[in-house]
């Protein structure tokens, strides 16, 4: 969604609602306080559990900190009682990569189609919105029952993959809509006039221009899958994904292992976010450098 806004939109921001000359109106201070409160409430609790996950063996679920060690991280990956965390990590990341690739390709294609009206486009669009808002658990059970009726075993790479796509694809297409709306059709026309074929127009004009938006879609695909819970619960089959593992831990593990798992999975999320933002920045900079050469 962050890709939906571009710097050109923000450019005129200095002429703010409040006169930009002189002092700030009182609303600025009130809203600044509200914003600060929001950010503190957003990050505060998360930071608490990251800190608490570094306690030693005497550690409990609340402050004060008892000692400082990596005990609970080791516990997480070695104890049987916490389940197969390593395997769940492995599966979740593989599944997220699969979902990401499919989401990027399919959303891009669908967004290309939706640029023009075509017979039945409203039906496809309504199906997509329906799939986005349908209760995840209900959909998951439906997929489970369907696979059951067809005699196919549920598995994380089959039924769960499909169930997750029914949620990441509508999201991806909506983000693609926002990305596409910034694409100037004149560029494609120019390419057509110069004799580019339909494939060349997509490969050589659209894809490079839309690359940052596609990275944003990939970020959505990966993280929505990596954290998906409700749709996966009844479709993952015998082997758990990571959110399911965390869920079973919240119900029966009352040690800082749970927090350690939270810290580890958040580090992975942050790495993914940083990689995505870094890629976008790299594309933009390379573009800027090229433009500067001319």
């Amino acid at each position, binding site marked *: 969604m*962050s890709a939906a*806004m571009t710097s050109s*939109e*923000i450019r*005129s*921001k200095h002429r*703010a609602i*409040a006169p930009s000359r002189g002092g700030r*109106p009182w609303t*600025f201070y009130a*809203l*600044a306080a*509200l*914003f600060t409160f*929001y*950010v503190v409430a*957003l*990050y505060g*609790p*998360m930071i*608490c*559990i990251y800190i*608490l996950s570094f306690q030693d063996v005497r550690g409990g*679920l*609340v*402050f004060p900190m008892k000692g400082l060690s990596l005990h609970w991280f080791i516990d997480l990956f070695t104890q049987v009682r916490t389940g197969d965390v390593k395997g769940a990590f492995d599966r979740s990341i593989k599944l997220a990569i699969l979902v990401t690739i499919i989401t990027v390709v399919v959303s891009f*294609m*669908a967004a290309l*189609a*939706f640029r*023009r009206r*075509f017979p*039945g486009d409203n039906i*496809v*669009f309504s199906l997509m*919105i329906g*799939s986005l*808002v*349908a*209760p995840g*658990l*209900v*959909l998951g*059970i*439906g997929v489970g*029952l*369907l696979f059951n*009726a067809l005699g196919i075993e549920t598995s994380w790479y089959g039924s769960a993959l499909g*169930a997750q*796509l029914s949620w990441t*694809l509508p999201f991806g297409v909506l983000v693609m*809509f926002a990305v596409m709306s910034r694409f100037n059709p004149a560029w494609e026309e120019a390419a057509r006039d110069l004799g580019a074929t339909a494939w060349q127009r997509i490969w050589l004009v659209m894809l490079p221009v839309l690359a940052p938006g596609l990275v944003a879609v990939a970020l959505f695909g990966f993280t929505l899958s990596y954290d998906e819970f*409700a749709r996966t619960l009844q479709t993952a089959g015998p082997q758990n994904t990571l*959110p399911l593992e*965390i869920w079973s831990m*919240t119900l029966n593990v009352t040690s800082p292992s749970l927090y350690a*798992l*939270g810290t580890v999975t958040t580090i992975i999320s942050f790495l*993914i*976010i940083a990689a995505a933002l870094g890629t976008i920045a790299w594309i933009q900079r390379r573009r800027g450098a090229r433009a500067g050469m001319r």
Partner: protein
Amino acid sequence: MTLSRPLVSWLFVSPLVLVLIPFFVLPILVVLVASVFETDGFGGLIPTFTLANYAEVLTSALTFNLYFETIKFTVLTWFFTLILGFFVAYFLAFHVRNPLLAIGLFLLCTVPFWTSNIIRMISWIPLLGKEGLINSALLRVGLIREPLGFLLYSSFAVVVAYVHQLTIFMIVPIFNSMARIDKRVVEAAFDVGASRFDILRLIIVPLCKSGIALGSIFVVSIVMGDFFVTKVMSGGGSASVVGAFYEDIGVLQYPSAAASAVLLTVILMVAVSLILRTVDIRKEIAR
């Protein structure tokens, strides 16, 4: 190219349709079919048409309570995320003068969206618990003598967790709408003497309608379709429609669970289409 335009469009959209049919349309139909079957009591379905499951669901007082609780949480969460999300977006769009800073602060708000919801929910436990940070701080200051019990495992905690998770779904679309508002309109209103409140009421809110609608769809559908936050954060004190559905599945009561699921899905779809009637989302996003 010899292919006709609609055919090309369908070719491009076909992968999406090929996922949506087996993983959205068919599963919902399966649930619909299961809801009119009889159960043999052991998890098996007997294919005879009956509306008894619906009669059972619609007449039980339990259903009424479940829906009441779920709708209560939905309305509370919607209200608080809307107020908080609207003013956070308003602050970023109209009060932060440096555009780069505005984008930076906006990204700061979106980062947690990409981390695990479950982890973000349980992270309230060390804060809100009886021995949590808030209670011990209040005790130390001397404001209270006994730890406050209502902070965790209560309706309060459920709403806190939902608002914490979902405010971002309001901020992003509303901020997007606000960024498109022509600042000259606002300045003109200011120059002819409109008060700040009038500008908010007569210009900003109407122009943010699509953002508000989009955010509301996300928040309402996620809260109504969720059971996990209610289950954990209420400590078992509150139930939700989907939670009861999950319990039913656990004891293999597929038909009544399916009837309840169909009812919920219908209510959700009606709510979403009512919101969609106020605004053409597809046109708004692609604008």
